[in-house]
């Protein structure tokens, strides 16, 4: 079957920021947003700015309809059974915290085992560390092999100890490793664990079918998939969400409030207290439309082409070490270091050529410790990345090597 493709030059015309001349190689951090997304948000501000779920007048109805329309778009995008399973959050971090508080505090007990991985982002480690410390639970981390891939043998051994929870990233933000998520979820479910998948780097680049994946929770962020900051999604299986207490409480998440007590709203609104990020949720809906129109297979194919190109170009550079698996098993992320040049210095030199490159620990300090480095440089790609941006990165690297020779 022929995969649908798109023309990157045409795509770039939708992103006004490229008129500034930047080479943007930090999409794993946050993506750029097309006019379609900012336009949808601007339209809300200029034509029907009002609060949702409350007022009887026309523009408030329009705002509510557009805000709720995102839920169906996202449901379809991740193939959930129902919009009741689509909870709006501020992003992945809030989604994971919601589960750690509302599900975790109820179900995780003293002596329970939580299984995480050494390549997880801090946002999928710290909430569980806090929970484990509070409850007296234990955390074990799945290690990586020399290629930066999770050690499945060790993971299976940990599953024999019947963990209460298994949480891992679909794709590593620091190395780009695409984890065998379907197999891992199936094994964890068979071991009786509740499973959360951090989809922050998965949903934007691979897409996801949560029913095929079979996880209990799946969290991701809008701003890494062409949407604005401040809007993200937590998917949860309905029966789990029904049994959970609210995370935040206040306005809009209630049915009735009496001085004697309160009954909570139905799903999904039970988890959406207070005035929401209305424009951002509408923007996220437009981002989902944009990605759906490109086709996630085409997105993945484009990223793979760029990643292979970058992998080859960087392989030729003396003194450069790349981390993580070969391009066929990684997302659009290339993490590397240069002999004698600190990643921050490389990023400063790249910045002078308008090349936006991330340097640091990528919110994955346990992984950096495991690799024996303090920081790496990271180039990451998306639908608008073109090869000449990779060429400009190579130019910046050579410039840095000249300065530091």
């Amino acid at each position, binding site marked *: 079957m022929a995969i649908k493709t798109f023309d990157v030059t045409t795509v770039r015309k939708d992103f006004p920021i490229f008129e500034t001349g930047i080479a943007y190689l930090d999409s794993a951090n946050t993506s750029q947003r097309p006019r379609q997304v900012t336009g949808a948000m601007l339209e809300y501000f200029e034509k029907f700015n009002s609060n949702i779920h409350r007022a009887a007048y026309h523009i408030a109805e329009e705002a509510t309809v557009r805000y709720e329309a995102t839920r169906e778009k996202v449901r379809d995008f991740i193939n959930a059974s129902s919009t009741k399973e689509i909870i709006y959050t501020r992003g992945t971090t809030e989604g994971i915290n919601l589960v750690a508080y509302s599900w975790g505090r109820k179900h995780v007990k003293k002596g329970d085992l939580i299984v995480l991985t050494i390549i997880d982002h801090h946002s999928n480690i710290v909430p569980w560390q806090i929970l484990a410390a509070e409850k007296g639970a234990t955390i074990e981390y799945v290690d990586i092999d020399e290629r930066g891939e999770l050690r499945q043998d060790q993971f299976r051994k940990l599953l024999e100890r019947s963990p209460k929870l298994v949480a891992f990233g679909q794709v590593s933000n620091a190395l780009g490793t695409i984890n065998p998520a379907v197999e891992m979820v199936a094994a964890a479910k068979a071991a009786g664990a509740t499973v959360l998948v951090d989809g922050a780097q998965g949903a934007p680049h691979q897409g996801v079918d949560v029913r095929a994946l079979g996880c209990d929770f799946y969290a991701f962020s809008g701003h890494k998939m062409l949407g604005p900051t401040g809007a993200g999604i937590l998917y949860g299986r309905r029966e789990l969400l029904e049994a959970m207490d609210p995370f935040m409480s206040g306005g809009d998440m209630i049915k009735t409030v009496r001085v004697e007590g309160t009954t909570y709203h139905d799903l999904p609104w039970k988890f959406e207290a207070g005035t929401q990020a209305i424009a951002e949720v509408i923007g996220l809906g437009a981002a989902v439309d944009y990605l759906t129109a490109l086709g996630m297979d085409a997105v993945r194919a484009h990223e793979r082409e760029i990643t292979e190109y970058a992998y080859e170009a960087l392989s030729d550079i003396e003194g450069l070490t790349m981390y993580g698996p070969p391009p066929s098993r990684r997302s659009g992320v290339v993490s590397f270091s240069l002999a*004698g040049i*600190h*990643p*921050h*210095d490389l990023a*400063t*030199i790249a910045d*002078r*050529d308008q090349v936006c490159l991330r*340097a*640091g*620990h990528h919110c994955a*300090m346990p992984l*950096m410790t495991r690799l024996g480095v*303090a*920081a790496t440089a990271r180039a990451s790609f998306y639908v608008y990345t073109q090869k000449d941006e990779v060429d400009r990165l190579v130019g910046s690297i050579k*410039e840095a090597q*000249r*300065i*530091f020779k």
Partner: protein
Amino acid sequence: MSATADDQFYREYILDHYKNPRNYGRLENPDISHEEDNPLCGDVIGMDFRVTDGVIEDVKFHGRGCAISQASASLLTERLKGLPLEDAKKINKADVLGELGIDISPARIKCALLSLKVLKVGAYGLAGSDEDEE
């Protein structure tokens, strides 16, 4: 931008201090030893001091980091040797940035000031003062 010896940021003396750091290493039985890290990047700098009669007799620094943090630490140790501890405490951000002699962007200022933080927290710790490093 072309790379030349007179690069406005990576000046020759900065690169020299990075590649050949002065007073790099550890002291045996130091009177003060303190480490700080830069949470932005995980870089670490530590300093050991030998203090005799209130004067910094010897100082060494260790750790890993970018050219800016390493050069800044190296330059600072040169200035500290032989300086009364009370005077060392008065060294401020402007002094350190002045010594580096380059325009530091907000994103890199923590790199430039990491060694000063080590000095301040270490020195005030020995004096038993509650004063913050700021």
